[in-house]
C-alpha cells in the first residue's frame, strides 16, 4: 500500500488512523487499570479526620503544593533527611494526591510530629522568625480567619463517591469530631473510636476559644506521614 492509495481513500485512512490510536491507547491506558497490583498494603492508613480534611483544603487553597512536595523518593539523601520513602498507600485517600513536583521548600510527606504546634504558629506568622534564610511568604491571616466548616459533612460524603471509605457515622458526626480535635482537652473518646488513636489533638493555633484556619492546617501537617506504623518492619518490596 503506498501513500497515494491511503491518502486518496478517506475510509481507509480513517480505519488505519483508528488502529494506530487504539494501539497507543491500549498501551497507555490499560496498565492503569492494574495499578493496584503495585500498591503495597500497609497498616494504619485511615481517611482524614474532619479537621485534617479541612486543613488539607487550606493547604490546597493557599497553594502550599506549589513549593512543597509530599513525596520522599527512595534515595539515600532523602531517606536520611526525611525518613522512610513514601508509600503509594499513604496517598490513597488523597483526591487529588499532593506529591507535587517542585521543592522550593522542603518535602512535607513526614513533617507530622517533627515540630511543635508553637513552632508552626511562629512559622506561619513569619517564617523568617524561626528560619532566617527561609524564602517562604508569611501566612498571618490563617490564625485570624475563623474556619468555615459548615460544609464538612458534604465534603466527606462527596469523597465517598471517589472511594474514600467514610462511614455514615463519621459523616453524621463530622462537626462534633472536628471540634473535639481542635479544642484542647475536650471529650475525644468518640473521635478516637471513629478514627483510631494515631492523631494529634490540641489547640493547634494557640487561641483556645476559636477554631481558625491555622488549627486545621497545623492538624493536617501534624498528621502527615504519621499514620503508617513503621515500628514494625515494612516490606521493602512487594
Amino acid at each position: 500500500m503506498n501513500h497515494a492509495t491511503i491518502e486518496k481513500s478517506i475510509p481507509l485512512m480513517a480505519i488505519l488512523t483508528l488502529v494506530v490510536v487504539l494501539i497507543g491507547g491500549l498501551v497507555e491506558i490499560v496498565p492503569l487499570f492494574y495499578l493496584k497490583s503495585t500498591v503495597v498494603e500497609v497498616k494504619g492508613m485511615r481517611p482524614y479526620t474532619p479537621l485534617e480534611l479541612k486543613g488539607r483544603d487550606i493547604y490546597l487553597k493557599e497553594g502550599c503544593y506549589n513549593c512543597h512536595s509530599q513525596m520522599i523518593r527512595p534515595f539515600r539523601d532523602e531517606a536520611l533527611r526525611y525518613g522512610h520513602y513514601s508509600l503509594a498507600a499513604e496517598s490513597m485517600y488523597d483526591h487529588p494526591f499532593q506529591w507535587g513536583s517542585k521543592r522550593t521548600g522542603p518535602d512535607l510527606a513526614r513533617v507530622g510530629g517533627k515540630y511543635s504546634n508553637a513552632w508552626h504558629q511562629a512559622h506561619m506568622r513569619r517564617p523568617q522568625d524561626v528560619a532566617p534564610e527561609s524564602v517562604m511568604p508569611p501566612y498571618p491571616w490563617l490564625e485570624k480567619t475563623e474556619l468555615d466548616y459548615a460544609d464538612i459533612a458534604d465534603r466527606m460524603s462527596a469523597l465517598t463517591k471517589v472511594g474514600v471509605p467514610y462511614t455514615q457515622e463519621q459523616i453524621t458526626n463530622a462537626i462534633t469530631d472536628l471540634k473535639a480535635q481542635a479544642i484542647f482537652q475536650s471529650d475525644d473518646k468518640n473521635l478516637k473510636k471513629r478514627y483510631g488513636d494515631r492523631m494529634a489533638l490540641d489547640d493547634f493555633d494557640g487561641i483556645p476559644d476559636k477554631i481558625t484556619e491555622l488549627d486545621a492546617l497545623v492538624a493536617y501537617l501534624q498528621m502527615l506521614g504519621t499514620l503508617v506504623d513503621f515500628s514494625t518492619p515494612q516490606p521493602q518490596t512487594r
Partner: protein
Amino acid sequence: MSEEGKVETTGHQWDDNEGYPLKEFNNPLPRWWLYSFYATIVWSVVYWVFYPTWPMVTDYTRGLLGWSMHSQLAEELAEAEVLQKPFNDRLEKMSLVDITRDPQMLQYAISGGKSIFGDNCAPCHGSGGTGSRAGGFPVLVDDDWLISGTIEGIEDTIKNGHTALMPAHQADFGGAFKTNQVDDLVQYVLSLGGKPVNKEAQARGSELFKGEAGCVACHGDSGKGSAKDTTGGQPVEKSIGAPNLADGIWLYGGDEKSVRLSIAKGRSGLMPAWNAGTEGVNRKLSPLAIKQVAVYVHSLGGGQ
C-alpha cells in the same frame, strides 16, 4: 524546484494548469536519526525484559535483573553504614571529653552533628544555633546557658529534653496578682538589667520579687537565674533552667512590653526529649546521633 527529479515524490500532482504543478516531496529522514529511533524501540523491549515494567492483573513484571529502587536504596544505605562503621564504633566507645581531644574524631562528630542538627534542631534553634526570639528558642552560640553548657550537660539536655514553665502572674490570666503589681514587677526586672525605671515601682516590685511572688525560688535572690544564683543561701536547682534576668540576654525579649507579657501571661517552653519516641513517628535520635549533636553544639562557641 531544483531538487525535482532527485527526490522521490508521493506521486500526486495538483494544479497542473497553473504552469507550476504542486508536487509532494517524500524527503526521507536522515539515516542516523532513523536508525537511532529504531534502536530506542529495541532498547525499550530490552528494558521490559530486564527491569520492572508492566502492571499486570495480580502482580507486575519484575524483570530478569530483579532490580528495584527500594532494594537499591537498602544497598546504598548498607554501603554507607559499612564505611562509617569503624568511626561510629570508636565514637560509641569514646567519652564526650575524649572526642573533643581527638582531632580526627572531633571533626567526624562535628560534621555528622552539623547535618543532624540542621534537620532536627535548626528549625527552632536556627541554623548554626543562632536561636529565635519568636518562640523563645534559646541561642546556642553564646556562653549564656539556661541549664548547662558543659558537653555532658548538653548531651543530657538533648537526651531528656526540658520543660520550662513560667507561671502567669496577672489575675486576668490565672495568676494571683493585680495589674499594678505586675507593673511593679516589670519595673524591678527591667532595673536588674540596668534600665532606667520608676524608683517607687521598682522598690515595690523588688519586695514582691523576693517575697509574695516567689520569683527568687527559680531566678535566684539577685535574679541571675538558676544556673548561677542562690536563694536563701542555697544554690537554685539548676535543672529549672530559669533565665538570668540581670544580663542583657533575653529569651522572649527584654523590652518593657515583652517582659510584661512574660510576667503577666507566663511562658512555657518545651525542648523535646530526643532519646524518646518511635522512629518515623516522632523522630528519635540514636544515642550516637545525640552524641554527635552534643559535640557539635558544644563546638559552636559557648561550650564550657
